[in-house]
């Protein structure tokens, strides 16, 4: 019995040693990058794999990418970044989170790769500048997007209503719709507090105006400024009038809001170009279009807000910085692959993009949304800033969390804005920097 045990122990030891050797041999040759991204539907994940991961691996033998789209990625990354062994090599983040990660010393500067792959000449300057802190790049943008008003063209035409471009038209159409039992704007915030920023962005952009927003977040004006306060006042009035989901926006979630609009019960959907794949592939049974939200005040142009949907950060703990840099560079230097990925439901990267490069079989609804994205961002002087990419985090979290309290009269407008101002003052004192181009959106 003892002899047998000894033999087994010897075999086990040799096996483990051999396995270790083989593993060590592979590890020396191969580099594996852990790439953490937000959760997505299966077709999108497949597009990532087919038009980025596989071609990159084929072009770079010895580098493999472990692409991990995970639910609640944002919070998982916050925890994992602290760990030298658990941090992903490259990860998705909101642009507004990057300064906090940088201040905590958790990010790798990416200047070397920005230069090496000529990204300053490829990526939109406004988008790239989101990752620039004290002259160094700590993130590189991924996709870009814009807020839009998506409207049911058939429903408007059937009722003889115009596509609203002014405040007056907007009010007329919304009032008429309510009278006919049609929901003016489909929107739901239940279980989706993040959606609240879509509302005040539209009023800040189209009532307050691009410059007022810039002045607010650079500390030149306060929340009590007439342009800013007026924006929130008008939003509250419109909510009270039932324009926003007949005052039931707290009763439905984001998916329900989209379903409501897709079912033809609502005129407008107040989201953005990120719905490109959601509305594509036959999801809509009627004619629809997307354009900027109408002007909410005489003299203020109808405008959209741009955003980088997500940025890519690299952990300072990564053991393969050059491989990660190579991946970022590959992403931005293969326009043909980007065109394919966009045609298969992914949003375009933050760089000029020629729609004619799309494959001929690209879904017509996806193409329509891409055209809208280019149309609303065409005039750089008339593009505003989306909260999730540009606003200071704590102020924005407060505005989102307490917007319902304003709607439900739990907070007066003055209290809501004064509290927001206190938080903004603190963030400005702590060094918050509004990283948006002076000329508006895509300028510079």
């Amino acid at each position, binding site marked *: 019995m003892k002899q047998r045990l000894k033999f087994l122990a010897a075999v086990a030891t040799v096996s483990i040693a051999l396995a270790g050797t083989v593993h060590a041999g592979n590890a020396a040759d191969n580099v594996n990058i852990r790439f953490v991204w937000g959760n997505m539907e299966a077709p999108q994940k497949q597009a990532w794999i087919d038009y980025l991961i596989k071609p990159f691996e084929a072009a770079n033998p010895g580098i493999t990418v472990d692409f991990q789209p995970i639910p609640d990625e*944002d*919070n998982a990354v*916050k*925890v994992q*970044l*602290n760990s030298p062994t658990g941090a992903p090599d490259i990860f998705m983040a909101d642009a507004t989170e990057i300064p*906090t*990660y940088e*201040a*905590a*010393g*958790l990010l790798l500067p990416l200047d070397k790769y920005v230069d090496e792959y000529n990204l300053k000449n490829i990526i939109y300057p406004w988008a790239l500048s989101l990752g620039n802190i004290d002259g160094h790049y700590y993130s590189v943008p991924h996709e870009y997007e814009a807020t839009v008003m998506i409207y049911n063209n058939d429903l408007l035409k059937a009722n003889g209503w115009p596509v609203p471009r002014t405040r007056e038209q907007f009010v007329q159409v919304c009032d008429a719709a309510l009278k006919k039992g049609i*929901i003016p704007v489909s929107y739901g*915030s*239940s*279980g*989706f*507090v993040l959606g609240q920023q879509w509302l005040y962005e539209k009023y800040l952009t189209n009532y307050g105006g691009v410059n007022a927003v810039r002045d607010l977040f650079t500390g030149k004006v306060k929340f009590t400024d007439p342009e800013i306060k007026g924006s929130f006042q008008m939003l509250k009035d419109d909510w009270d009038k039932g324009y926003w989901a007949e*005052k*039931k*926006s*707290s*009763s*439905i*979630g984001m998916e*329900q809001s989209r*379903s*409501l609009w897709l*079912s033809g*019960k609502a005129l407008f959907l107040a989201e953005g170009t990120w719905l490109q794949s959601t509305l594509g592939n036959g999801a809509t049974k009627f004619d629809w279009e997307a354009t900027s939200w109408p002007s909410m005040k005489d003299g203020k142009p109808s405008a959209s807000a741009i955003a980088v949907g997500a940025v890519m950060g690299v952990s300072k703990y990564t053991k393969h910085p050059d491989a990660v840099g190579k991946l970022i560079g590959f992403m931005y230097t293969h326009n043909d692959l980007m065109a394919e990925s966009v045609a298969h439901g992914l949003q375009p990267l933050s760089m000029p993009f020629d729609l004619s490069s799309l494959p001929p079989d690209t879904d017509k609804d996806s193409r329509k949304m891409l055209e809208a994205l280019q149309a609303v961002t065409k005039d750089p002087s008339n593009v505003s800033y989306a909260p999730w990419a540009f606003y200071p*985090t*704590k102020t924005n*979290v407060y505005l989102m*969390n*307490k917007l*319902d*309290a304003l*709607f*439900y009269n*739990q*907070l007066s407008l003055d209290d809501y804005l004064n509290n927001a101002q206190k938080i903004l003052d603190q963030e400005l004192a702590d060094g918050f920097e509004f990283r948006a181009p002076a000329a508006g959106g895509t300028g510079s």
Partner: protein
Amino acid sequence: MSLIRRSEIVNTAFVLPAFFLHFFIIAVPTLSLIYFSLTDWKGVGAPNFIGLENFSRMIFEDGDFHHAVINNILYMSVFLTIPIVFGLLMALLTVRAGRFQLLYRALFFLPYVVSPVISGKIFMMYYDPFSGINQFFEWMGWSFLANINYVGDRNLALFSVAFVDYWHWWGFVLVIFLAALHQVDVSLYEAAELDGANRLQRFLHVTVPQIRPTLVTLLTITIIGSFVTFDYVYVMTQGGPAGATEIASTWIFKQAFNNFDAGYGSALSITVCAACVVVYFGFRRIQRIGWDI
């Protein structure tokens, strides 16, 4: 070495793995939570020690947390009554179901095995004022029911969310009560019947005293469970509308993760944890002294 001493060492050696496991998985995170509660940690990077500042902020400044705790108490008070009473009642009926008992038990237990995320989403569809159960009521001509705004009405929202949690929980309560009822000695009922006790008297003087330990355990679990509940609120309303469904755990989550205020979130967590410990020991004490109700 004496036999007793040797046996003590052996026993301790057997317990040590479990002790280390517990120490690293439970004690270390708990101790680190206490430490972080005394710092301004953002959740990333290095924390700075700020003493009891977070606790002072919690007590004197954070009205939202106070409101969330009140919501927790409301949540708990309904939890302590409806699912317990309903679970016990159904257990009393099911225990007499003979050969169908297993079927009923499985059916009633079913909600407990449905993921909270799934049931939360399903109930949100029912609650949808544009396409949910209200449409059915309207079709039936019951307009007084068709206009209820389940999660959009501040006065109803908390109970609408809690209802889903009750729906999920009561099957578990029923199964536990069923197990306890099976343990009651039948001869006690027979003796009570001989003494002329009616059904209610038999329930009050035989059943309740016999299942008292189970009842106390369930009450303890329920109270603690309602203080640490999170998933239904997070999936369905995220604390809205206007804080109507905000509970301590969702508020803590928002502070720690959305607001980069993990130090403060730790202080709030420690407080909730301490409250649960107090409740636990309170019920332990009640169990020890007998609780002659």
